[in-house]
């Protein structure tokens, strides 16, 4: 084997290896610690794993593009909440009163458009002002959250539509609706990133922005499209989740950005851009949800959950660094 191949393999496969370790650990530990007669790796439980990964997962897939592109988006949690409000509230608007359940697709569309617009606004500011995406979206994280609160004060926005709930809770070929959305999003974005010119250009821009510019790639529009995609996905995530739950608190989605970034980084996407894979992000998302589920399964308490998740994040970063160390002859700067 060529030198480096093993570490490349480890790097690429690390997240799936980690998932296997988790599955083994929780299955074995579960035998002793869990009350449940059901095994951790029970089929239903694994199906739930996917479903429960959907809210964070759908956004994380979008964050992968953004980070591959060399940017970051901290405003996704607020976009998630605002889209949820539009979804639930628009169903009660008098204009749509006569439509019955026909209002559902309209509400969905309005919510998704909200996400796209918020993403576009971020993208446009990043593109036109040249202010770093971190700052732009740190700002809009506050600003969009402000809009969320302005919509309905500090009160939750609710509308329970049972048709919608039934749809969201349905299982098709064993998989839950949310799972289908997660899988389809993963597939589509995988396709976009790996098969389309836009996706390949996004990699090139994140990898070497100057080279991309020299090669005539229009960096600005690509970045803007990616921000629109993540806006869309943040609202899609909201649409899927709130169709089922029917009520949104104004601070819902807070800290989502952090979990999303965590999942993406766990999946091996570089913070500096240019490298990353949608499938590994899915791995990262599953790994986190497994960790939560598993810790619950074996009865770990709140404090342990926080501690373990934080330290694992750092440990993965450390591992990544060790796998990427250059030889002795490297410049020490």
């Amino acid at each position, binding site marked *: 084997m060529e030198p480096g191949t093993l570490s490349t393999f480890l790097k690429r496969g690390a997240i799936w290896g980690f998932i296997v370790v988790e599955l083994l650990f929780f299955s074995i530990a579960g035998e002793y610690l*869990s*009350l*449940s*007669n*059901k095994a951790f790796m*029970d089929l*239903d*439980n694994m199906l*739930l794993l996917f*479903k*429960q990964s959907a*809210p964070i997962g759908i956004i994380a897939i979008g964050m992968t593009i953004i980070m591959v592109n060399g940017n970051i988006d901290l405003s996704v949690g607020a976009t998630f909440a605002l889209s949820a409000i539009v979804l639930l509230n628009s169903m009660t608007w008098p204009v749509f009163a006569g439509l019955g359940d026909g209002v559902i697709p309209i509400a969905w569309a309005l919510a998704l458009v909200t996400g796209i617009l918020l993403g576009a606004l971020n993208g446009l500011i990043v593109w036109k002002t040249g202010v770093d995406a971190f700052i732009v979206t740190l700002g809009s994280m506050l600003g969009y959250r402000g809009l969320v609160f302005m919509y309905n*004060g*500090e*009160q*939750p926005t*609710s509308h*329970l539509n049972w048709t919608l*709930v039934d749809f*969201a*809770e349905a299982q098709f070929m064993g998989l839950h609706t949310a799972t289908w959305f997660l899988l389809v999003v993963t597939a589509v974005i995988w396709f976009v990133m790996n098969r389309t010119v836009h996706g390949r250009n996004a990699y090139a821009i994140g990898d070497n922005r100057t080279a991309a510019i020299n090669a005539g790639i229009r960096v600005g529009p690509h970045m803007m499209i990616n921000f629109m995609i993540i806006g869309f996905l943040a609202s899609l995530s909201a649409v899927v*989740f709130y169709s*089922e*739950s*029917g*009520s*949104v*608190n*104004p601070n*819902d989605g807070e800290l989502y950005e952090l979990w999303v970034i965590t999942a993406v980084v766990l999946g091996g996407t570089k913070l500096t851009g240019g490298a990353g894979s949608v499938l590994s992000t899915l791995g990262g998302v599953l790994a986190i*949800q497994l960790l*939560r*589920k598993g810790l*619950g*399964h074996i*009865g770990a*308490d*709140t*404090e342990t*959950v926080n501690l373990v998740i934080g330290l694992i994040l750092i440990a993965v970063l450390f591992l990544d660094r060790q796998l990427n160390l250059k030889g002795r002859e490297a410049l020490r700067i």
Partner: protein
Amino acid sequence: ESMKIGITQNNVGVDSYQTTYEKAFIAASDANSNVEAVVLDAGGDVARQIAQMEDLIQQEVDAIIIWPTNGEAVIPAVRKAHKAGIPVIVTNSNIAEQGFDFVKSFSGPDNITQGSRSAEIMCDKFKDMGIENEAKIVQISGQPGYTTAIERAKGFEDRLPEVCPNVTLVETQPGDWNREKSQKVMEAFLVKYDDIDGVYSGDDNMGVGALNAAKAAGREGIIFVGATNFSVGYEAMERGEYWGSIYQSPVDDAEAALKTAIDVLSGTEVPFLNYFDTPKITQDNMAEYSKPVF
């Protein structure tokens, strides 16, 4: 044979009421050899709570106790348990009415009554002071969207004009069950209003935050009334700084929830709204109550 009872709590660690509740719940279930408990915490995140409901259903527990993060958002998840034939007991803070069909019982305080009692405590005190016709008050409510918060505010706001029609409630802001946030809110109230005679807070943790703000600003003579008498509230009452509250114990709360679940499982009849009593406590009668442990 033993019963497996799962609980998903709202947000353990956010304040000591919730932490004490968790400890008490575990202690009570440990004490009962017929009960095995799975204790989960949603960390305030509704998505996580729904996932925990699903996990409990999947693990085929015999009953589920839920302390909702959002009284409406969890209804479909509760329905799911109902459909799976698992009885659901809501604890501490009720879910919205639409979901009543899917739960066996609500176990907790009667928060509307709590709110009215707080209004009465405040009004009586104003009458003692002779300011019942001019007093101006502000309200710091609990976490928005939380049924407990909404009900306490409603109980208070409905009852106050009945007993003290001339007292004006000038403004309400949420304090999110958070002492530091209420302190900030109160600071702003103090700047905004020269004349504040009373403060009603959704719980004492917030009330003490407001009290701290008033003390720091040197504003004296304000009547503080809260709910859920925390130990900090009790101490402030001992010092004569805080007038009154509602005595509500997380231990009672937890034990009542567990008992309700056990009753439901063993076929004992339980009322749908299974309230435990939460009496008034003021500086006048506080000697009758022991200091809260939380």
